[in-house]
């Protein structure tokens, strides 16, 4: 057993890995929330439910339609994104000009319906989803055993985050998006179809949630409550990071996952609450959030 200063390195690295994986999911979800918030100025309360829907999409696809993991990784986010576009067009758009608290409540209602339906259909106990054949192995590193699938989650989700960051910060499409965040009326005056961009942005944001759901299916059990639990944590992360910066949302998500993992090793009793405690600390010292720009 490798120990330094009484620290069991195997256990510590194990929890760090779990933390990085959780952090990858936090980053993906916080990113989606931040993108949607940027343009629509709403907090998407159904984000967790759509993440859950992504996991169920993978599960149902495999068991009923014969869609394997790799196809699910492509098809499910598109399907969830399409559902998001439908929701935006039919429900969220009509109240876009009302107080934003209403859209929060509306998306909360959507979350209740989705979670309620899936609880009724599948019960609240979780369902297993097998790790795809190609990623079943693992690598032995000096201080730990790294299962391939876990490495895949971290690499893949961080790549998705990086690509999204690049598109938003460095491309022309991203420039439209950022301009829409600053001043939608002016952009419309320049002849850009703002409502279309809004719809697509919402679809893309929730598509990311669906993608996170598919990624999560093999590591967490697929259950109707998986979404609401993670969403509240992601809200705290969004408060910590502030939603003004895309990169900030990604970094904060990942960092909080690591903090949670370390807490699991050093003081397991606080592992469920540590992120909320960090939020309290941030509120006390830097109320606008670590990357916040609001006045």
């Amino acid at each position: 057993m490798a120990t330094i200063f009484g620290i069991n390195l195997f256990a510590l690295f194990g929890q760090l890995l779990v933390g990085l994986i959780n952090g990858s999911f936090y980053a993906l979800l916080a990113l989606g929330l931040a993108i949607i918030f940027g343009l629509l100025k709403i907090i998407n309360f159904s984000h967790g439910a759509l993440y859950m829907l992504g996991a169920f999409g993978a599960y149902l696809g495999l068991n009923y339609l014969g869609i394997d993991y790799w196809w699910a990784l492509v098809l499910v986010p598109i399907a969830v994104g399409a559902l998001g576009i439908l929701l935006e067009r039919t429900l969220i758009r009509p109240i876009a000009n009302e107080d934003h608290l209403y859209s929060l409540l509306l998306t909360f209602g959507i979350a209740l319906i989705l979670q309620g339906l899936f609880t009724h259909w599948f019960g609240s106990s979780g369902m297993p989803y097998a790790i795809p054949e190609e990623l079943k192995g693992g690598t032995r590193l000096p201080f730990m055993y790294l299962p391939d699938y876990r490495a895949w989650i971290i690499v893949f989700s961080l790549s998705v985050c990086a690509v999204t960051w690049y598109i938003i910060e460095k491309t022309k499409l991203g420039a439209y998006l950022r301009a829409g965040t600053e001043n939608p009326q002016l952009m419309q005056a320049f002849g850009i179809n703002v409502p279309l961009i809004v719809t697509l942005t919402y679809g893309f944001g929730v598509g990311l949630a669906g993608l996170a759901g598919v990624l999560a299916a093999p590591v967490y059990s697929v259950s109707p409550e998986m979404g609401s639990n993670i969403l509240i944590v992601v809200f705290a992360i969004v408060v910590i990071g502030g939603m003004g910066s895309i990169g900030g949302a990604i970094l904060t998500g990942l960092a909080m996952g690591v903090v949670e993992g370390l807490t699991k090793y050093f003081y397991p009793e606080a592992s469920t609450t540590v992120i909320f405690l960090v939020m309290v600390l941030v509120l006390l010292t830097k109320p606008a959030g670590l990357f916040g720009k609001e006045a």
Partner: protein
Amino acid sequence: MKNKKLNLVLLGLALVAPFALYPVFLMKVLCFALFACAFNLLLGYAGLLSFGHAVFLGTGSYVTGYLMLTYSITPEIGILAGVGASALLGLVYGKLAVKREGIYFAMVTLALAQLAFFFYLQAPFTGGEDGLQGVPRGELFGFIDLNNNLTMYYFVLAVFLFGFLLIQRTIHSPFGQVMKAIRENEPRAISLGYKVNQYKLLAFVLSATLAGLAGSTKALVFQLSSLTDVHWFMSGEVVLMTLLGGMGTLWGPVLGAGTIVSMQNFLASSPLANYIHVVMGVVFILCVLTFRNGMVGELQKLIRKNF
């Protein structure tokens, strides 16, 4: 004048109601009505959406439940302690939450409530998943036995009226006017020299205190304190009650609470029992899309238009 008559009629109805309806059902309605009124004080009058208000209901419920179970104290002391604990928590959480505005305020309160949820889940005195069962109702002031449901009902009614009148008084006070001013135009209130955050904090503490009163009373009515009371779902429920009844109206939350509790009771014994969350989600969406003023709000609009 007209309002006074209406209030007297309603009071009369409340006094004879337990002879026509099941008292425990009525007490449930009253507890939730008080909870919703407390919540409405914050959302409807100060314009602050707390998405974690269940934490104050639950704190009142747990503290009262624990003290009643462990020590042989009278219920009024138990309730006072529960209310005090909620007020204190309201002060701490309020101080943190008023640092952010709008939807951030909602997220902060939700996250803080989840923090407390995990605390109550792990703390040794809450009974974890089982909750505190068999909380004794005791004897009010040492000589009024509350185990009789009818006696208990009148006690709960008195508690509700106390809370309701306090809220009414608050809304019509100068403090209430400032609260409304902040809701309507915060920068303007600031420019007029009001220390906005202190007003918000006071509204938050008052609302938390009354939510705690509802929770403490509820613990005695059902003789149970459980995690349901602190769960985020309960926080959502009280938002729905207020929205459905009409936020920013005095009677809206009462009507909303009555409707939701009746609906849940009705659904529980119908084939739709498993769909309670779905139905509430649908009601949420319908309210937001078509019915933003709530039942009382729409009624007031109708009366103003036609009479």
